[in-house]
């Protein structure tokens, strides 16, 4: 019995860590939705594109090599250098900012005042374009991502819990790093939105576009800013998930893990994305541990949505979402 309790604690802790990884993806959705009311279907593909770009830059890969070689008859694949991770992250960020600018100039600017469903459809198109563009730019092969993040069982936790309970807990070092990074990220985002001029402008736009425009806040620059931040969050999520599985096109599917988190935490709340992620992570792992064997296993995907739906019944706006009040 006590052994089962220990197993359940270990499962819950791992669910907590998995929840942090889900939250990293959900954060990007929340930022864009909060600032512009757009549900950005392309967020998962942005994580993929950012991670592909990072690995490509680190490995000195020639972008569009296949296309260039086909047209010019050359055999260019690598520049022959390897960029340090920090430098590559900075360059990747610059590319994500350029991407944010392009999205605003080429898509969003032309869709101001359109229905949310039109903007949502535009991001679906953007997702498919970006997936193909990433493929053309960096190739479809699986890339090993090595930015120096530790991976594997944490020996100290294993040993300490073994000495204390006679059973060593498994906690992945990568998950611990992800938790620390998520905590730092959320703190920085909260400080940014509370204490900087741009952050206040961002909140103003989130509250009321028209009112923000009337006091001279540029909607365009705010949208570029928020898509850039979402690009940065996508890069962090892409690095964390890419370190687990290699950087490959299925990374874009991590967006699926964010949906129940958003339903539960609300589309407009940064703390909601974090708390929602943790509830989903712990809930699905514990359910799998307790009920999975009786139900044939693989319960996590559907249970996450059931859990989110249960919360929705009682709080349609999500745990931390803004209550929708429409006056007639």
């Amino acid at each position, binding site marked *: 019995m006590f052994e089962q309790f220990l197993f359940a604690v270990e499962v819950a802790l791992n669910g907590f860590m998995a929840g942090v990884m889900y939250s990293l993806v959900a954060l990007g959705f929340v930022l864009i939705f909060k600032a512009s009311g757009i549900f950005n279907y392309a967020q998962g593909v942005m994580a993929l594109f950012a991670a592909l770009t990072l690995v490509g830059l680190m490995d000195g890969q020639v972008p569009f090599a296949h296309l260039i070689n086909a047209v010019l008859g050359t055999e260019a694949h690598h520049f022959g250098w390897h960029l340090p991770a920090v430098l590559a992250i900075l360059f990747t960020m610059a590319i994500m900012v350029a991407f944010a600018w392009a999205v605003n100039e080429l898509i969003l600017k032309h869709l101001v005042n359109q229905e949310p469903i039109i903007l949502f459809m535009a991001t679906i198109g953007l997702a498919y374009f970006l997936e193909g563009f990433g493929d053309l730019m960096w190739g479809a092969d699986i890339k090993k991502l090595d930015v120096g993040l530790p991976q594997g069982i944490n020996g100290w936790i294993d040993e300490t819990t073994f000495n204390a309970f006679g059973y060593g807990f498994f906690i992945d070092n990568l998950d611990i790093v992800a938790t620390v990074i998520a905590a730092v990220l959320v703190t920085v985002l909260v400080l940014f939105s509370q204490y900087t001029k741009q952050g206040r402008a961002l909140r103003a736009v989130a509250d009321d576009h028209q009112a923000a425009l009337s006091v001279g806040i540029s909607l365009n620059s705010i949208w570029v800013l928020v898509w850039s931040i979402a690009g940065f969050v996508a890069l962090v999520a892409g690095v964390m998930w890419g370190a687990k599985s290699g950087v490959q096109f299925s990374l874009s599917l991590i967006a699926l893990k964010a949906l129940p988190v958003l339903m539960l935490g609300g589309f407009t709340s940064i703390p909601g994305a974090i708390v929602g992620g943790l509830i989903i992570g712990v809930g699905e792992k514990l359910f799998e541990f307790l009920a*999975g064997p009786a139900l044939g296993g693989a319960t996590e995907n559907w249970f996450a949505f059931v859990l989110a739906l249960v919360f929705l019944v009682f709080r349609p706006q999500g745990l931390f979402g803004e209550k929708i009040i429409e006056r007639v």
Partner: protein
Amino acid sequence: MKTQLTALAVAAAFAAGPAAADLVFPSLDYRTGPYAPNGIPVADGYADYFTLLNERDGGIGGIRARVLPCETGYNTEKGVECYEATKGQNALVYQPLSTGITYQLIPKASADGIPIHSMGYGRTSAADGTTFEWVFNYPANYWDGASIAVKHILDLNGGNIGGKKIALVYHNSAYGKEPIRTLEELSGKYGFELTLLPVDHPGQEQKSQWLQIRRERPDYVLMWGWGVMNQVAIQEAANIRYPMENFIGIWWSGSENDVEPVGGKATGYKALALTAPGRDFPIYEDLERYVYSKGLSAGAGDQHGKVLYNRGLYAAMLAAEAAKKAQEIHGVSDITAAQMRDGMEALEITDRLMASLGLPGFAPPFSVSCENHGGSGRAAVQQWNASSGSWSLVTDYIKSESGVIQPLIEADASAFARENNISKRCN
């Protein structure tokens, strides 16, 4: 003027269609989407082999082979669309490279009279030629794979695995569930305890499954995975310090793509293999001379010698040899799909033939017959070494236990025949 335009349009339509003399081999590729890293090497190998035949031998029996690529993205609906779009172009055989697409095409291709070759995937009971006239899955199927993996474990344990624990980590789909029935039979026969651990698509998050493995410490873990599920599983196994030499994947969980992202910790991981790995075969000299050096290699030309590239070469070689056999049987070079089927049913792959094709020791010999569309049911075990970045075969080609598998195949095929009102053939 109108008549001239009509004539021009008709002429253009004929010009755009297939040349009558081509032997057409549709290639249901997936070079895009989440499964592209696996689809690309297979498609490249498939195309390069036919290019070699055209460049070196002038085709097959004097007629050029034409590969007709169609992108499926590993999507079943697109796969069916590809089939419908290409079947009218004198397609000789379809190799869908997807169990889902194969299942959809079985009734369609059977009605259209075009053979399907699902090499090491698809519907396992298609090995029964008495029911599945138009479907072939030689040289081995999933049930063979399950039996071969257990036989390897038996070999490692002196023939006694009573009381051992074996876990199956599988893709929670029709594909991943295929080996369960066989493993349950074998569990009863040899007395090992079987634990089933399904992983939902796409398999990016497997913490629950590997925590359970860590708790229960099975002696061996088998894997039926595909795509990102493979990389994550091998990474998680490394994370919990599971002994890699006791972790054995099916042949779709054993390419460079699956182990390289994990780095050094993947060393020792094993997988079943339908062919030998690497490019240490005479055929590669011909490929270099007639294909690669002329810039005719398919794709980016960066997959040569990889496990899945070799599988693509092998699939094309089997198709080409069946076409040759069909030409021989019917005495014509320009064969039809029905004649191709006859060639596939009379296919005989010998060691001598493999050597003459520049592939000595590349794959085991087998033969196909009216009753047996599944081949010999042999596969080897290969093991990964991260420091050399290569797979190597660690066993001979192991024959599956036909005594266990054949009754299962017959039972499943008979049920299919009853449901679909199919009369048994080969009497």
